């Protein structure tokens, strides 16, 4: 069971003078329970890729496969396949419209003709998965804190019972505690079998949580690898708009100065190497 994008090419305003290529042959693969982070600068095509995974955009060439089935845009099958991939847009809370969290989360399932108690079960399960307590369901979503609002937005996508969750910049605008809580929640959801594809320029959260990373630049795939491999690559080949976390940058400087330490090192390892002067000459 997997979600695959194969050699996707896409241009905005195709066939007009304003044509702008956004993706030039990008591939990504995520299996159930996996976590892939797509990282890149503004304009690298990462949001465009996210929208392809959810079949919101139709590629010019290449294909999207969901659980082994090729998604044919516009077909009745595509509708069914799209439901398997939940997309959480950037700053999703700006799209809130309901007066209570219950109504907000239950909006999509309420269109499925569920009975009242089935709908309530669905809302409660989604809220719980997103780490929201039942009391929050009565609240006005506009009155919640930034971190809570983000959870409500994610819960409203989880309520559609997707197998793959694609999130566009899920940590943007959250404070350190908010980022930590959110990533912990995503890890729990993933443990339940849901796959996560995170589009982000937050390299810290990408390096900490992903199984695999994909680096995009101007619509091209420039690197794919594990977090460790990707950090080493980026330390040696800086990419515009992608700044490694401070400790990784510090380890990079140590490695450049001849210290033999992994690029993702703990502070004790760094201090140990520095105080022993364990520099390779």
């Amino acid at each position: 069971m997997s979600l695959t994008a194969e050699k996707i090419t896409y241009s905005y305003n195709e066939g007009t003078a304003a044509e702008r290529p956004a993706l030039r042959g990008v591939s990504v693969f995520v299996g159930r329970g996996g976590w892939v982070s797509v990282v890149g600068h503004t304009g690298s095509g990462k949001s465009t890729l996210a929208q392809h995974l959810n079949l919101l955009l139709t590629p010019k060439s290449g294909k999207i496969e969901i659980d082994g089935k090729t998604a044919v845009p516009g077909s009745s099958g595509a509708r069914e396949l799209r439901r398997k991939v939940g997309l959480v847009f950037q700053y999703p809370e700006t799209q809130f419209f309901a007066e209570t969290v219950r109504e907000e989360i239950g909006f999509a399932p309420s269109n499925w003709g569920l009975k009242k108690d089935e709908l309530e079960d669905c809302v409660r399960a989604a809220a719980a998965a997103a780490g929201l307590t039942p009391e929050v369901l009565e609240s006005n979503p506009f009155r919640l804190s930034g971190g809570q609002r983000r959870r409500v937005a994610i819960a409203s996508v989880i309520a559609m019972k997707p197998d793959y969750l694609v999130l566009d910049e899920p940590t943007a605008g959250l404070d350190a505690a908010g980022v930590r809580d959110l990533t912990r929640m995503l890890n729990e959801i993933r443990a339940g079998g849901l796959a996560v594809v995170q589009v982000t320029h937050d390299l810290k959260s990408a390096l900490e949580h992903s199984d695999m990373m994909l680096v995009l630049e101007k619509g091209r795939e420039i690197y794919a690898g594990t977090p460790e491999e990707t950090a080493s690559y980026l330390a040696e080949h800086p990419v515009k708009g992608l700044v490694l976390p401070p400790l990784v940058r510090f380890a990079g400087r140590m490695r450049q100065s001849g210290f033999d330490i992994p690029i993702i090192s703990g502070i004790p390892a760094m201090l140990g190497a520095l105080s022993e002067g364990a520099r390779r000459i």
Partner: protein
Amino acid sequence: MGKDPIISIRGAVYSYKGAPSPALCGADLEVLPGEWVALLGANGSGKSTLAKICNALLEPTQGDCFSLSMDCRDPACVPLIRQGAALVFQNPDDQIVASIVEEDVAFGPENLGLTSGEIRRRVDRALELTGLSEHRRRGSHSLSGGQKQRLALAGALALEPKVLILDEATSMLDPEGRAALLECLRELNASGMTLIQITHIMEDIARAGRIAVMQSGRIVWDGLPADFWRGEYLRFGFDEPGELALYRELISRKMIPEGTRPIAEDMAEALCL
């Protein structure tokens, strides 16, 4: 410029309608001209409310607030305060009004009754400072999140305020955009602009000259960054960023000099890496 505070808030209390507890309960803050203050605190600690009071967008239910030596309660002063102590919010979509970038930047100055030459000068300068000159003719809706934040900042800068209040206004910027913006803020501050920056981003905080911490609607700590890094940071329950933990170890082992900033590159330089 004298030593009189440019912002002076005493015992400010503010309650939102229908909210169970007040957002501010006796906040005090004095900011001197030319200072760069980072205002920290968890979500819901009252930072944004305090920012809106500095800008006369909200009137405190109790307490006093003077911005640029003007009383925020005096209706005649309110427009002057809003122009002289400009506020930039987190969500740029809340503050972009025109469909073309340069027209959006011109909106503020046009309302000040300036000559067209002066409006053009201000717009050009604000676009230049925020790195948006090449996008001036673009539709404001077509900008990315980070570019929209820069546009919101350009709109505030075009007012040529004495005080610039940034409420998480760099949250959508990517690290490079943030570095460019910090450089821009550094220049503005060096030329005398007072900055109050609400942020939780370490790189931002490390550049401020003074740090104030809010908790439950009050300022609970106010002092110099070096004192803050030494231990206050943890006392307020903030997550300790990795580089700060490393910084503390390096300082306590006397491997880097006091006064080094807890920024990876500064520490690497200090260690001659």
